[in-house]
């Protein structure tokens, strides 16, 4: 069985699928990604499927579970490069991949991951600030007594 390599780039993991996917390869990729997210602390996973000529229900479900499991491990997933014929077939198959974020190419996918990561940092900074604000600072009912 061939394995799909997982590359680490900054705080993201990159997966470019260049082989014909058989079911065991798909399951192994799922496990590899879960382990690598935890070991690298990656915040994003980008899966490039521009070389994938078919996505059937098993492979499609894999994208959905990778997106779900990375969210549980505090990372976001973007699937990029889906071929038009694959998209048409998936919809006809009844698989809309709701919950899987997509982008047209790697560049846009990385942009999405960066934006998500920035937003998260802002939110964490806000929460940290909120912790520091003293309760009833000046002018409060208790202050004038």
């Amino acid at each position: 069985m061939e394995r799909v390599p997982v590359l680490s780039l900054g705080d993201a993991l990159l997966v470019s699928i260049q082989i014909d996917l058989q079911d065991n390869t798909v399951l192994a990729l799922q496990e590899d990604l879960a382990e690598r997210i935890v070991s690298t602390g990656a915040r994003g996973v980008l899966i490039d499927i521009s070389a994938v000529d078919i996505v059937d229900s098993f492979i499609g479900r894999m994208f959905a579970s990778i997106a779900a499991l990375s969210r549980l491990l505090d990372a976001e997933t973007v699937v990029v490069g889906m071929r038009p014929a694959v998209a048409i077939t998936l919809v006809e198959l009844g698989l809309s991949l709701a919950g899987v974020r997509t982008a047209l190419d790697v560049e846009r996918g990385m942009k999405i991951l960066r934006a998500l990561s920035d937003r998260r940092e802002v939110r964490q900074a806000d929460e940290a600030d909120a912790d520091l604000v003293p309760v009833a600072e000046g002018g409060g009912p208790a202050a004038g007594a």
Partner: protein
Amino acid sequence: MTTSTGVEELPIRTGDDVVRVRQLVRARAQEVRLSLVDQTKLVTAASELARNTLVHGGSGTATVETLSRDGRSGIRAVFADEGPGIPDVDQALTPGWTSGSGLGLGLSGARKLVDEFAIDTAVGRGTTVTVVKWTR
């Protein structure tokens, strides 16, 4: 009248065999110049059915041939196993109904992706699914 040429049979015993069936169907679909979308639909259907043959039938075969009728060409793919068979075909063809851990889109999805679909199954005897996709 429909004529058939180039019959080729592949075993389905492993996940790699499923990949080989996809590749054969893709090559034959390209030969008869199915459109890219139709090739993709047929290969996707073949992938679902070959997996069914492996997972539910235990193992089996895929037979692929080129058809010709009234100036149009087509690809026929037959997936046969001698597994347990399907007790309730109507139920098995319902989108979302699943016998196991899948999404229940295999059989119903494959049917939507092809022009002709036939299923022949009997409990204890096995299952044969035949699909055809024609050029436009």
